[in-house]
């Protein structure tokens, strides 16, 4: 007890300085904080969404839809390739994730296979000469096309990454403060937007795929015939948002897609004064659009967004400048939203909202207040209880250790920017209570040793060394429990686990080391003959 090593004292003093320094920003007003020199820590506790209000969204990238879309495209590609090669075929259709067809003339079989192998699909990354689609010939002049599994997986993974990037761009355009967008698992994305308590705005901006295509309207059959089911191959019936709302028959092949846009913004039409979205194509898009419009003057084309026709104007003249405008049924707000979506790009696959949690800012503030009050009440009751139980000296020492512990927890949480949640506050209070346990173990052990007939000084030493193993054993169990919570929990539970872990570590430190240093000082100063708590 007397030969207190210097490093212990230094460590305790350093920890107090650390605690005060890093906990202080939480009570200093923001203005004063800004005027402090740059070396001073300025980070405050990082409050979770449940405490500051905000939205949490767990989105799943619908990779199945991605695959379905690829299958549809594959059918169209096969049709185009074989037509270009002038190979006659029948029974082109999807069969359980694959595409199947029958070549009419057996003599054309090898030509068909060669054409398909060379032109359909894309080169496979990491396998020179390989393609991402298998073309196999079957019995009775059948040909079967299937996707290579690795290519599908890689594509799904890429789609998730792209989605994250696009979501980020879209949310940034909303001006939300410090959003967190992270990937979770294979095909999930977590979006956390503190302060954004209107998840509808968030969802409407990230939930839309925003896949824009320009397709020719198919006028080879009348609308009545098409509705009755006589849809020509290569065309499809799409719902329309134009006045009247009658569906429209359009060709499946897209003339130009949203990827070829370089810019989009909301503006007003110079003649009608209505809100429109003005856009500009890149060079490839401009050329394609120019060619298509030149070849189809007098016909209609459809502007299709996420499977819905938003406008279907008649081509008056070739549009070669590479820019144009979409005049749908827009308000200035919805036109602006569409412009934002088009600028950020289309999501490679639809997103499904799997989990959504929103807390209003007021409720968050209430929770913070409740947390402050209950932490205060808990703290004071522990304090009073310890002083009542062990007197001003020993009780007081454990209270000092507890205060230092509190500073260390708040300081560490502020420094590491660990998220403090409402259950985390509960964890904090429990940690304070359990921190006292280490003091109690030490004090009780000292009493035992004095009773067993040891001298005061050796009883105090033994109290520490013997209580130590128990304290470590007892706290390892708490840490284990916290680690499991961290592994399996989500959101608020993780915050709780983290608070608990930091709390257990700092309380062992403060209860053991701080108490030891304080007791040693008391012993040197007072030279007591008896233990005041026996």
């Amino acid at each position, binding site marked *: 007890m007397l030969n207190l090593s210097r490093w212990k004292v230094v460590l305790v003093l350093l920890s107090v300085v650390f605690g005060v320094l890093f906990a202080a920003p939480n009570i200093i007003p923001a203005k004063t904080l800004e005027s402090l020199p740059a070396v001073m820590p300025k980070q405050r506790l990082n409050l979770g969404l449940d405490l500051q209000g905000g939205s949490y969204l767990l989105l*799943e990238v619908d990779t199945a839809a991605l695959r379905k879309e690829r299958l549809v495209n594959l059918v169209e590609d096969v049709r185009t390739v074989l037509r270009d090669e002038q190979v006659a075929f029948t029974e082109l259709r999807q069969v359980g994730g694959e595409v199947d067809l029958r070549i009419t003339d057996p003599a054309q079989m090898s030509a068909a296979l060669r054409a398909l192998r060379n032109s359909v699909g894309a080169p496979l990354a990491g396998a020179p000469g390989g393609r991402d689609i298998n073309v196999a010939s079957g019995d009775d002049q059948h040909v079967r096309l299937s996707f290579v599994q690795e290519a599908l997986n890689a594509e799904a993974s890429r789609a998730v990454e792209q989605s994250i990037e696009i979501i980020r761009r879209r949310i940034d355009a909303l001006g939300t403060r410090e959003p967190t967008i992270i990937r979770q698992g294979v095909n999930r994305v977590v979006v956390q937007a503190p302060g954004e308590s209107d998840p*509808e705005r968030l*969802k409407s901006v990230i939930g839309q795929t925003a896949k824009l295509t320009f397709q020719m309207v198919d006028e080879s059959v009348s609308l009545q015939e098409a509705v009755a089911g006589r849809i020509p191959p290569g065309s499809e019936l799409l719902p329309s948002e134009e006045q009247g709302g009658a569906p429209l028959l359009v060709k499946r092949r897209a003339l130009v897609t949203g990827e070829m846009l370089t810019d989009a913004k909301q503006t007003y039409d110079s003649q009608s004064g209505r809100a429109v979205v003005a856009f500009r194509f890149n060079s490839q898009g401009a050329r394609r659009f120019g060619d298509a419009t030149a070849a189809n003057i007098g016909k209609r084309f459809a502007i299709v967004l996420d499977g819905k026709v938003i406008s279907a104007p008649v081509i008056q003249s070739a549009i070669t400048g590479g820019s144009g405008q979409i005049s749908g049924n827009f308000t200035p707000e919805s036109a602006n939203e569409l412009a934002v979506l088009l600028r950020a790009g289309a999501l490679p696959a639809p997103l*499904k*909202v799997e*989990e*959504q*949690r*929103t807390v*209003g800012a*007021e*409720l968050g503030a*209430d*929770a913070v207040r*409740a*947390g402050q009050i*209950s*932490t*205060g*009440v*808990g*703290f004071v*009751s*522990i304090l009073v209880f*310890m*002083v009542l*139980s*062990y*007197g001003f000296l*020993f009780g007081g020492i454990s209270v000092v250790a507890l205060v230092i512990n509190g500073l260390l927890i708040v300081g560490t949480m502020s420094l590491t920017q660990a998220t403090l949640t*409402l*259950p985390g*506050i*509960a964890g904090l*209070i*429990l940690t304070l*209570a*359990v921190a006292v*346990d280490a003091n109690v*173990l030490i004090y*009780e052990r000292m009493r035992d040793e004095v009773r067993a007939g040891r001298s005061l000084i050796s009883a105090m030493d033994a109290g520490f060394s*013997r209580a130590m*193993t*128990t304290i470590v*054993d*007892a706290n390892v*169990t*708490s840490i284990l*429990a*916290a680690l*499991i*919570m961290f*592994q*399996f929990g*989500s959101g608020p*539970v993780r915050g*709780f686990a983290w608070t*608990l872990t930091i709390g257990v570590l700092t309380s062992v430190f403060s209860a053991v080391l701080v108490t030891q240093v304080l007791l040693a000082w008391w012993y040197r100063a007072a030279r007591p003959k008896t233990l*005041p*708590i026996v």
Partner: protein
Amino acid sequence: MWPLIKILPVTTNFRFVAFARLAGALSILAVVGSLALTLLPFEPPCGGLNCGIDFRGGTVLEISTAPKAVDLGKTRAALGAMELGDVQVQAFGAPSSAMVRFQTPAGESPAETVDHVKAKLTETLGQVRFARADVVGPKVSGELLRNGVLALGLAIGLMLLYIWFRFELQFGLGAVMALFHDVILTFGMIALAKLEFSLTTIAAILTIIGYSMNDTVVVFDRLRENLRKYKKMPLREVIDLSINETLSRTVITGLTAILALGGLALFGGPTLFGFSIIMMFGIALGTYSSIYVAAPVILLWGVKRGEEAEVILPADVRP
């Protein structure tokens, strides 16, 4: 008499083990009862527990019509007409607040359903603020439940390993029996009191596991020490002695924890109320089970004593 610690008798001499048989019977009865309460009826996913949306999927809205009071009857009627699955409307804290829970009808998008419900509530109640809106899809809720159960199982398993490693297998088994006892009884209480079973409940139970172990370890530590110190003393007496010696610590620590959590239950608002009640209950249980479950299990199994054990003694605890 102050400090109060002086009031506590210096050496207590309660014969805890003498009541072990009775306590054991009571514990078994309570465990069976709790299991029945928790599991019956055998309906997935939650049996007798009042499952929150975390584990069942669905939506929770916390609404406020301040300064007016929420008309619960009108709200129920309006939502009842919407053909949502299992609508619950209940008061939540102040009279101007209410909690609305419902299931998303099969085949419909949860997000869209929430929009409809919000519109309906605004139409029925006039000015409504949505303080909280949580939507959990069926896929996620299944995963959360699986992870929660996995976490509990893993926690108990890890504790067994740790105690086995630090003590002996018998001690580990005693500790794990105590854990099962605490966790099952806590579940029974949650089912009986109709408290919501959610992610935070799992966190509370994991904390209880940590605390219960903490308590058991303190008793075991003393037990191990006394077994080495008093080689000739019968096991049941050593157990009694160890429990008595650690009793003042057990009482003080338990009281501190319950005091602190009491503050939380009183002032923490409705969200933390259930959480703190569960933890207080668990801490009381953890204290009880260290004395009446963990230690008697060791008595039942017996421990290795004598020369064999002495070989592994660290130097500092040799008498």
